[in-house]
């Protein structure tokens, strides 16, 4: 098909294509809070292609009108650009509700008929984007029924794609099972595993920072970098009934396996040969394959700290201990905090530890990457005492998205004294316009067929191999590493500080 000549130079990205988006689990939180507001904002920006329709597939009985009204309510509260009645009226005309049990094949046949009607109205366009936003236990049923009803098959010049929400399994065998069911139904090239962290502007900016600037890449190796820290801190506990899900998952599986290892891959990857989806993902998966794995519990214990919060105070309020939280097992052995010393066995990063930590009920909400450069040689100015000698490049993922660089400067005055100063770049002050939500970018990419910001099967499975070694040591060994404790509202357990102390390093103050 010829390219659209009127698209030239209008946008520097692949164009989203007209399609019908079918959301499984359409009555859930994700649809109301993220997906539909994202689609509405894409429409408000004028980027939604004509002919896009949205079909909500869920079990509850309701009419199109009720479904639209519920979505409108949510959009009024959550839309990034506010809610405009006229625009919503125009956008919501394309929304339909399709009631069916996920296990009921008949529901898929009737869905197929509905989509065929849309295709006829669209003059033959038959692109389909299936979005699995349901609870993960239904993924198998949905995928198999999509296959049985032939909805997975692209017709004519169209395409049929699937977007899979995390978790991508709970360990390697379940991930492999999910992936095999997905790939039984859809080609890997039509599979989009969504990790919303990769849709964040600052995560995307990591590659730009590294590969669009001449000054960083020459220093981006073990000759100049001492270590890297990746922190994801949350100041929330198990509010809103999250304890039930979280207690089965834990910090390592919930955040490290996907989001934080993805960030680590972006920081550590070699330069890709091109910016195609596979060009980028080939390099990311090489990093994951190079992660040093630990074969016994003692090695895990010396490189990984797990912990649960005890009672404390957060944001000026008393906070209960993890085991006292709603829907959490009082004898739970699920970690609400994890810290890891990760080594990457390749030429670039040999000997450079990546310290990764994630915790609930920490003092503040912050996700950031800090690259700590080596100390200069101890000559000239560098024999004088200073509080912080190393240069540190900080990439703030959220909140206060931006980049800062710490360096030493002379304090004005006749005496020669130095102190660290910070050069700071804030997205907010440099680019006044609010960044699009991660889901907006990712939905546009899925409609355009650009999988760069989505995880590939081998990435997911390689990450699980690394995580499973730790989980096995914790839950299946005779001498499991201990569960440490930290008061809610503190920066984690003493053992996590010791992990860095052993290497004569400290966690960056956030």
């Amino acid at each position, binding site marked *: 098909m010829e390219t659209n*000549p*009127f698209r030239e130079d209008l946008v520097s990205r692949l164009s989203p294509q007209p399609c019908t988006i079918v959301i499984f689990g359409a009555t859930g939180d994700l649809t109301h809070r993220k997906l539909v507001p994202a689609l509405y904002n894409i429409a408000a920006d*004028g980027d939604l292609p*004509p002919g896009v329709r949205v079909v909500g597939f869920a079990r509850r009985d309701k009419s199109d009108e009720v479904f639209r009204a519920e979505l409108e309510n949510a959009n009024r509260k959550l839309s990034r650009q506010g809610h405009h009645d006229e625009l919503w009226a125009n956008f919501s005309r394309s929304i339909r509700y399709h009631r069916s049990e996920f296990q009921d094949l008949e529901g898929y046949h009737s869905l197929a008929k509905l989509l065929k009607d849309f295709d006829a109205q669209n*003059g033959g366009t038959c692109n389909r984007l299936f979005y699995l936003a349901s609870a993960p236990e239904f993924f198998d049923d949905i995928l198999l029924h999509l296959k049985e009803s032939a909805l997975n098959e692209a017709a004519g010049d169209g395409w049929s794609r699937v977007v899979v929400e995390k978790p991508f399994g709970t360990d390697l065998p379940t991930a492999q099972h999910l992936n095999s069911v997905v790939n039984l139904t859809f080609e890997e090239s039509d599979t989009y595993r969504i990790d919303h962290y990769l849709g964040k502007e600052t995560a995307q900016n990591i590659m730009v920072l590294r590969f669009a600037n001449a000054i960083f890449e020459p220093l981006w190796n073990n000759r100049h970098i001492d270590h890297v820290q990746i922190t994801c801190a949350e100041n929330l506990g198990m509010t809103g009934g999250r304890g039930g899900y979280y207690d089965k998952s834990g910090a390592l599986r919930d955040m490290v396996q996907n989001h934080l290892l993805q960030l680590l891959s972006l920081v550590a990857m070699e330069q890709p040969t091109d910016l195609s989806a596979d060009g980028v993902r080939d390099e990311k998966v090489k990093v994951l394959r190079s992660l040093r794995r630990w074969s016994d519990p003692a090695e895990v214990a010396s490189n990984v700290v797990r912990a649960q919060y005890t009672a404390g105070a957060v944001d000026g309020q008393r906070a209960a201990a993890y085991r006292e939280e709603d829907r959490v097992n009082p004898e739970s052995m699920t970690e609400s905090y994890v810290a890891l010393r990760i080594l990457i066995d390749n030429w670039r990063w040999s000997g450079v530890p990546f310290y990764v930590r994630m915790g609930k009920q920490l003092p503040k909400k912050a996700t950031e990457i800090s690259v700590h450069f080596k100390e200069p040689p101890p000559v000239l100015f560098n024999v004088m005492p200073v509080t912080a000698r190393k240069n540190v490049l900080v990439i703030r993922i959220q909140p206060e998205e931006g980049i800062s660089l710490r360096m030493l400067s002379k304090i004005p005055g006749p005496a020669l004294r130095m102190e660290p100063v910070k050069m700071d770049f804030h997205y907010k*002050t440099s*680019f006044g316009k609010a960044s699009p939500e991660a889901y907006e970018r990712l939905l546009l990419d899925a409609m355009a067929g650009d999988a760069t910001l989505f995880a590939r099967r081998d990435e997911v499975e390689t990450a699980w191999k690394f995580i499973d070694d730790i989980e096995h040591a914790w839950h299946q060994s005779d001498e499991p590493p201990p569960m440490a404790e930290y008061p809610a509202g503190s920066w984690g357990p003493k053992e996590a500080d010791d992990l860095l102390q052993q290497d004569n390093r400290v966690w960056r103050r956030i």
Partner: protein
Amino acid sequence: MPPDVETLNSQELEQLRACHLGKEVAVADIGREFSQLWDQDETATRASLINFAIYNEQLGALLENTRLIQEITLEHACRALLIMSLPGKKAHRVRAWITAHCQLDAAGKKVACSEQVAFLVEGTDSDLIRNIVFAHLDSDLPLVLWWQGALNARFEERLYSSVDRLIVDSASWEDPQAGYNTLVSALENDRSRFIVHDLAWTRSYQFRIALASCFDDPALRSRLSAVDSVAMETAAGHETAALLLLGWLAAQSGWSLKETHLVSGTHTCTFEKEDPGTQVRAQITAVKLAAPLQFLKISGGDFSVAIKRELDCDFLQVAYALQDRKESRILPAAGTDLVDLVSGQLMRGGNNQLFFKILPSFRALLQSSDQVSGIGD
């Protein structure tokens, strides 16, 4: 909005300037005065991504441009240099005022401020204007120059060769063809490196987006070679925006201009398509009280696409028909005031290759419409 300055006496004008432009300072002291301003302030950040110079030769421009900059800096932190030149004055004199435009956070605290220097230059002196710009730039940041009004003798090589982006508005030119001749000469100068943004072209952006989105539909795209008619409506005074849009359509579709007529404000053009012997007939009608671009319709064979913008409406109405199938929807239409146009253009940036690509077909339209204007009228 500042009052009509031409109705004010000199004392009232001075009061107005003092109120809007900030502190009057000696030109040589601008840097020191800014330092003192920041010393007295608890503002967290003095922010600047670009040097943004605005040049104008109209009385009252400093006040109006201060208002524009105040809004533009909400999205584009910059060092703003506002220059109002009054070349008709005999005495050579420069006066300067400094102020800052601050973004406020939810609590009303200043979080980032952009500096503004306003210059009133009396007398014809290109050297003086150039020096004012060069002496007050933030180092290492790109220079965006918004030249308001006709490109005259003050728009000279040593000035524009230092400019990274040039913003003009051909809708404000009395003679767009002469303006474009000057502009193209400057672009072709070996020392030029600026990217040009004509706000008349920017005004067509949402129409181009809307049209492109219709032709994302493969069924419609396959009919592109069947286009045989184009109709446009534009506000009187904004004909260049319509000609730019038509030039773009022609360049992107491979049409070459054969003939043009202008009768009672209506341009009629005939293009020959790549397929020999097939033609496209285009008509541009200027109407009063309309959005700068009000209507575009493309049709041929079994399809038509129509895009409409009502005056003062925030949306474009887009409709297309293909055989029995009919689609309609609304798309956002960016604001048409100068702040919206300039902010949107700065946000998009880019190297404007498409604009250079369509320039030959646009200039052919401009030239022919100019040549025939005497006949038609």
